[in-house]
């Protein structure tokens, strides 16, 4: 058995956390070859080669792969697929765009958002927004899966696997990139931050979200939001924590003004410590919180920012 793992690369840089956690998740499935596809991604390939358990890194460095367009990257993966039993990627927006395409091209049913690799054919994954966990056995000869990385620890950087440069596959010429509008931020990335401070509908407005951000900055934390807060326009969509947003599992998760809809819980319930701040003592968030504070977030969050 052997694994081809599509590394998460953004603008040529490796997302070390996502990729290293995906490596851990599939460690038991055999020899791991990492594929780095991107523009000017040789540094990313060098970093991927340090991950423990990786036997080889393939580097496809070309502008064609620079913007994660599904068609060329999927064509590249399919061209390499023959020698691998498992094709894997961390369950990011980029991989969720690419791997189902790969899967259909190989006539294989994709397995999305794997939370546990039970054996080489059997996998656990959440369904119904995390309200149920399905254990499925794949009957396909090749398996194509995305891994929800939040529950895995990152592989150590102790290795030095050989790197092989790949020739570029043909450009299918179906889509062209126009622009990226990426939020520039000095804060840690939401999915890999040690601390996440999230606000919900209770925050009440875009302006008031500043108090959530202030606490996050004091704690060197990432900022998250519930879907209610995002839908109300208080926070950008890429801050959304939940089944339809990001799945996080930090050391400390502080939920302020979040009632705790199942949709949201699905995205943060694997956090080590959960703190809930809500003035409604019946809010479901208190049922999963290690520490609850029944209080007005507008009193408590600034006080917390002051005191930590």
């Amino acid at each position: 058995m052997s694994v081809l793992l599509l590394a998460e690369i953004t603008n040529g840089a490796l997302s070390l956390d996502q990729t290293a956690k995906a490596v851990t998740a599939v460690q038991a499935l055999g020899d791991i070859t990492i594929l780095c596809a991107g523009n000017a991604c040789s540094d990313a390939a060098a970093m991927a080669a340090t991950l423990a358990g990786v036997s080889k890194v393939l580097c496809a460095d070309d502008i064609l792969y620079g913007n994660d367009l599904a068609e060329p990257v999927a064509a590249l993966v399919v061209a390499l697929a023959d020698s691998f039993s498992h094709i894997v990627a961390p369950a990011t927006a980029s991989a969720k765009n690419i791997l189902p395409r790969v899967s259909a091209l190989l006539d294989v049913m994709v397995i999305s958002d794997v939370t546990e690799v039970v054996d080489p054919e059997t996998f656990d994954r959440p369904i119904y927004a995390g309200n149920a966990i399905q254990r499925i056995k794949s009957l396909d000869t090749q398996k194509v899966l995305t891994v929800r990385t939040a529950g895995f620890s990152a592989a150590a950087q102790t290795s030095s696997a050989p790197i092989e440069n790949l020739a570029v596959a043909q450009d299918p010429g179906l889509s062209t990139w126009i622009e990226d509008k990426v939020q520039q931020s000095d804060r840690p990335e939401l999915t890999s931050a040690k601390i996440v401070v999230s606000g919900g509908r209770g925050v009440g407005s875009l302006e008031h979200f500043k108090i959530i951000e202030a606490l996050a900055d004091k704690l060197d934390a990432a900022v998250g939001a519930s879907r209610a807060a995002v839908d109300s326009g208080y926070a950008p969509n890429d801050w959304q924590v939940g089944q339809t947003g990001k799945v996080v599992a930090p050391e400390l998760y502080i939920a302020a003004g979040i009632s705790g809809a199942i949709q949201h819980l699905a995205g943060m319930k694997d956090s080590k410590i959960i703190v809930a701040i809500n003035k409604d003592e019946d809010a479901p968030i208190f049922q999963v919180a290690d520490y609850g504070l029944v209080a007005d977030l507008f009193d408590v969050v600034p006080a917390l920012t002051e005191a930590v």
Partner: protein
Amino acid sequence: MRVLVPVKRVIDYNVKVRVKSDGSGVDLSNVKMSMNPFDEIAVEEAIRLKEAGKVTEIVVVSIGVKQAQETLRTALAMGADRAILIEASADVHNDIEPLSVAKLLAKIVAQENPDLVLCGKQAIDNDMNATGQMLSALLGWSQATFASEVALEDGAAVVTREVDGGLQKIKVKLPAIVSVDLRLNEPRYATLPSIMKAKKKPLTIQTPEELGVEITPRHELISTSEPPQRSAGVIVKDVNELIAKLKDEAGVI
């Protein structure tokens, strides 16, 4: 220009999901079923494109049990022109896998020749997030997933996509598959007169056998279980106690 919109009948998003005690799945008997919310957004977008004069006909298609006709009627009441049901199962608990759905849709695409397929990014039951990408692969078409803005140009669609960290704008050649995300639009409610009118709109029924598509599942369900529960902790009285707990007991700050 013709647009094809696949819609799925799923458990209503307000219904609390119950895992069956024998682990065979989620209980769907006698629960409220609705159109998958992401598909509703796709139908709405198609209607808006038609209202803007960019689209001439909207065909909706559903794959599943015969009750999915209700879902198709909802789409017709919203403003779709005609509907196709592919009756692929007699049991509501039998979920047709995205790969099979994509193969069936590819046949419908061959019949209907749409210029654009607008679909939801994922169904809220199996959460697989795959059908659009798979259909695109099978047809060799371009794909733009997780759309929060769609603009049609001459022979192309310019799509703004929700990606990790922000937005990406791409241009895809038509014909194309566009899968839609939550923020694209807010779907309309069907009015009573339009619901009445929808009853007269054409709805045809086909089967996977007629279309020559094999839908044997590739995933064997071993079990369905409740997610692990977290237990409630303690209620602290103020900020100072909270900080003390986080520092001394949990050691996380």
